[in-house]
Every structure is written in C-alpha cells, then in structure tokens.
C-alpha cells in the first residue's frame, strides 16, 4: 500500500512537471497581458509536430529539440505581433474570442499538415525498465530533470539578466517601463515567444507518454490551468508548485478515489474549489480594484 502510494506520488511528480511548465507559460502571458492563452496547449502540440518532422528528417534528437524550441519561439513572437497587438485594450470577450479562434486554427493546422492518426514520439531517455527500485521510468526521471532545468533557467533569466528585468518591468508597470526606455511592445512579444518555447518543451516531454495527436494537450492544458490557479495566476513560483501539486493530486485521486475515467473532472473540481475558496491562489496577490 505504502509502496503503491509512493509510486503514485512519484509518477504524479513526473506528470506534474509537465503541468508546471505549461502553467508557467500561462502565467507568463497572464502577468504581461492579463490574458489567459486558451491556445497554449494547441501551440505546444504544433511544436511537438515540428520536432517530430525534424527527427523524421534525420536530425539527432537534441538538434531537433533545439530547432523545435527556436521555431516555436519565433511563432510565439509572430502571433503576438500580428494577432495580439491590436487586442491590447479590447474587452475580455474579444480576447477570449481571438484565443479560441487561434486554438481552432492551430488545431486544424496540426491535423491538416500532420494528419489525425496517433503517432509515437521518441524519448531521448530510452524506454527501458523502471529504475530506482521500480518506482520511476527513465523517461519520467529525464523529463522531470528537463522540466526542472527549464524552470531554473527561467528563474535565473528573470532574476539575473537585464532583459529579464526589463520584461518584468514591462509586465508590472507598462507606462513607467516605457518612460525609462524599455520597448514594452517587444517585451510582450518576447514573453509570448518564451511561453511558446516552454510549451514546446512540455509538449516534447509529454508526447512519448500520451502519444502525439492534434488534441494531445487538451487535458494537459486543463491541469495546467488548475495548477496555475492553485498556485496563484500571477505568481510564477506558485504556478510551478501548483503544477506539481495538481500532478500528484490527479494521480492519487485517479488511483484511489475516482478512478481514471474521471481524472479530468478532478481538474474541474480543483479549479472551482480554488476560485470559490481562495481566488488568488496559494501564492498570488489578492487583487483589489479602485472604483
């Protein structure tokens, strides 16, 4: 029993890492623009297809990995420049509409370019036997490591580089940032690029587990939402912790309480509970507004 629980927790942490990355991508865009990117999952799926295409073209895995991340970054920047720019001050309904439109377009683009059949995606860590006493597969271990590296890199980038500081300033107070000479528009575009790149990594890490098809990320996006809200949607650290927590909760609930068929409903329940009990999340700021 204890063994089983431990196993569920460890594999929960592995999937939680994926949720944490996507949640981080969501939070980055939310912090900068106060939009929630409903198309984040679709963008990540598309990036994973790009990686698969590069691998099938004969490139080694890590070259394809870097290639896919770079292309995704560029796509993210382009989407912000072309589609999101005019939406800066639009009402919520308009931005939700644009994001849903983007979701539909990217989803059907994936299906059209790479067809709808379910594909296998290679893991760079091998698909060998469970290691460390049968608790964890080598892919789980490897993908958790990659996730952690990404998260630490993002942290260092925002904390210790000039560009990271400028991006934080642009998100925190656009007009003051503009006054000290930061090009706020480009900082937002960079934020979109980074979010797309992080999403791409998450997609490549999860694809060997859940297999690749155009709707691969639909459920993952939901868990990432739940994670982001649980941690506080304006707190990157919170999003990461929330993502890991949701991974563990999901696995434990799936194994012992509701069964695997209702796992997605767990995400819904977490979302509703957080929003009703503590809308600002565990680490988020409570928002007060002047009237």
């Amino acid at each position, binding site marked *: 029993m204890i063994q089983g629980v431990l196993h569920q927790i460890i594999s929960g942490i592995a999937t939680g890492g994926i949720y944490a990355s996507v949640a981080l991508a969501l939070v980055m865009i939310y912090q900068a623009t106060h939009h929630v990117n409903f198309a984040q999952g679709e963008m990540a799926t598309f990036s994973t297809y790009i990686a698969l295409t590069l691998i099938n073209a004969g490139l080694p895995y890590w070259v394809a990995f870097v290639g896919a991340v770079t292309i995704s970054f560029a796509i993210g920047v382009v989407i912000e420049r072309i*589609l999101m720019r005019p939406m800066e001050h*639009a009402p919520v309904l308009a931005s*939700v509409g644009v994001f849903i439109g983007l979701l539909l*377009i990217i989803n059907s683009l994936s299906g059209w370019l790479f067809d709808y059949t379910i594909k296998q995606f290679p893991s760079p860590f091998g698909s060998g036997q469970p290691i460390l006493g049968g608790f964890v597969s080598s892919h789980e271990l490897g993908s958790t490591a990659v996730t952690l590296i990404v998260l630490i890199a993002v942290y260092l980038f925002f904390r210790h580089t000039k560009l990271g500081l400028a991006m934080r300033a642009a998100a925190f107070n656009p007009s003051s940032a503009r006054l000290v000479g930061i090009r706020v528009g480009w900082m937002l575009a960079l934020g979109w690029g980074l979010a797309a790149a992080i999403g791409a990594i998450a997609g490549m890490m999860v694809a060997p587990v859940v297999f690749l098809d155009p709707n691969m990320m639909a459920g993952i996006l939901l868990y990432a939402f739940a994670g982001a809200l649980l941690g506080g949607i304006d707190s990157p650290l919170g999003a990461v912790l929330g993502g890991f927590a949701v991974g563990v909760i999901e696995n434990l609930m799936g194994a012992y309480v509701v069964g695997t*068929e209702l796992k997605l409903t767990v995400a819904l329940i977490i979302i509703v509970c957080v929003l009703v009990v503590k809308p600002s999340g565990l680490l988020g700021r409570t928002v007060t507004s002047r009237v």
Partner: protein
Amino acid sequence: MRTTLPPALSILAVLVAAAFVFSDYHLFQLTMVVVYAIAILGMTVLTGINGQISLGHGAFYAIGAYTTGVLITSWNVPYWATLPVAAVVCAGFGFLIGLPALRLGGLYLALTTFALAVAVPQVLKHKAAEQWTGGVQGLVIDKPDPPFGLPLSPDQWLYLFTLAVGALIFLLAWNLTRGRIGRAMMAIRDHALAAEAMGINIALLKTRTFAVSAMCTGVAGSLGAIAVQFVAPDSFTVFVSITLFVGLVVGGVASIPGALFGAVFIEFIPNLADQVSKAAPGAVYGVILIACMYVMPSGVGGALARLVRRVMR
C-alpha cells in the same frame, strides 16, 4: 414592438413555408438550425445581455439531450413531455453553476466553464450511470410520428414542432430582455457597482440569468437529441461548446435575431468547408471568429441592426 413584429413574423412565415418545400434531408438541417438558434439564444441572454462569458454551454446542451434520451428509453415518456423536464433539470444545473460563477470575473468564468466543457464527456461515460445513459454506446431514440393523423412526414412534423418551440422561446427571451429585468441584466453587464447602487440584487439576478440561459440551451439539447435520434458522450465534446460560442459571436453576442444567423452559420459552414478537407471546418471557424473580433465585433445581428436603422431613418 411595431418595428420588431413584422420582420419576426415574416421570418417565421418563411420558415413554416419551408416545411412544405424542402426534402427530408434539408428539413433535418433546418431543424438543426432552429435547435442551434435556441441553444445560442441561451448564450445571448447570458453573455450578450448579462456579460457572463461561458465557453461551456455544450454541457447544458448535453444535459438536456441526456435528460430526453434517458426519459424516453428508460421510462417510455413521450418525447414532448421530456422538454419541460429537461428545462427544469437544466435550469437547476445552471443555477448551481451560476453560484460559483458569481465570484468569478469574465476571464475566470470563461476558464471554468471551458473546464466544464472538457470534463463533460468523461462524466457521461462513467459507469455509475451506465444503466441509464448506455455508457460509451449512448442511447438511440425513435423518431416521433406526427400526431392526430396529420398528413405530414415525420421530418416535416419534427421540424414544425421544433419551430413552434423555438418561436415560443424566442418570444419569451425577447420579452424578458426588453423589459425591466432585461435592463437590469444589461446594467449589471455595463457597470455592476452602479447597478447595485440602483438597488439591483446582483447575486440573485446573475444566478437566475444563468438558470434561464442553461434552460434555453438544455431545451435545445433535448430537441437536438430527438432530431438526431441518438445521444452519446462523444457527440458532446468541448467542440460543441466552442461551436456554440462561434455561432454566438458570428451572429452577434447581444442580438436576439443574431442567434438565428449564428445557427445558420454553424449548421451550413462546416458542411461546405468539409468538402475541402477534414481540417477545414475548424480553420474556417477560427479565421472567421478572429475576423469577427476585429472587423465586426457586434456580429451579423449588430451589422443588420445598424443597416436597418440607417435605412429606416
């Protein structure tokens, strides 16, 4: 009243006449147009008039459809008697979901209802209710015959029946939104604090609007189930909710006649686009949705209303 009634009646007359012109297959399509129009109307009241964004109305559509399906197959209830039951059930669910929605501003509500829409097929498949819902297989419903020996084909009858229910719901919605309650709903949408200061009970009105909206969409779901003669979990994926949302935006979020245009759009455009490729309907939806947001934020309904105002002046 004077400007709304003649066009509304003439549209209704054309729709009734259509029952005796078109083939059975086209009548089925028209039936679905009316069904979608009712479903979108529910969202118009909630999103357009009251300002609460829902991306999860497919859930209420599914609940309505399943209520009808289960009542017909498990208890042999006549199809017309399932509509009021579906209305009550969906209004109840809508009210319950409206309660947490009270605490959620625009974006969070969109997000939560989106989660609801994604989770629905899983819940419908669950084993606990398999005895009634038929699990993954779903339920098959017989097509109703015309009553009283009327000289109509089943498709004609079903179309006219759906049209009658639709006309009634449109009338009720129009009546609701142009009166005192409708103005209160709009006041909440435009400035909640000011509305509260005017003595509007925001919590009560918002949850009730949610209930009314869910009721509309639920009745549409149960009419849709009768028309399609089949309900299964996989026909109620998140795509249903997104389709309804597309219809809402294209028709015009705050326009009651707009619901009809939106319904025509989501019934016929996928069929046309499907002939190009399997991926085309989604892409067309996406492009048109974004285009609408940029160039025609008030949708077809809003554009027509502007046109009419300019001509009538």
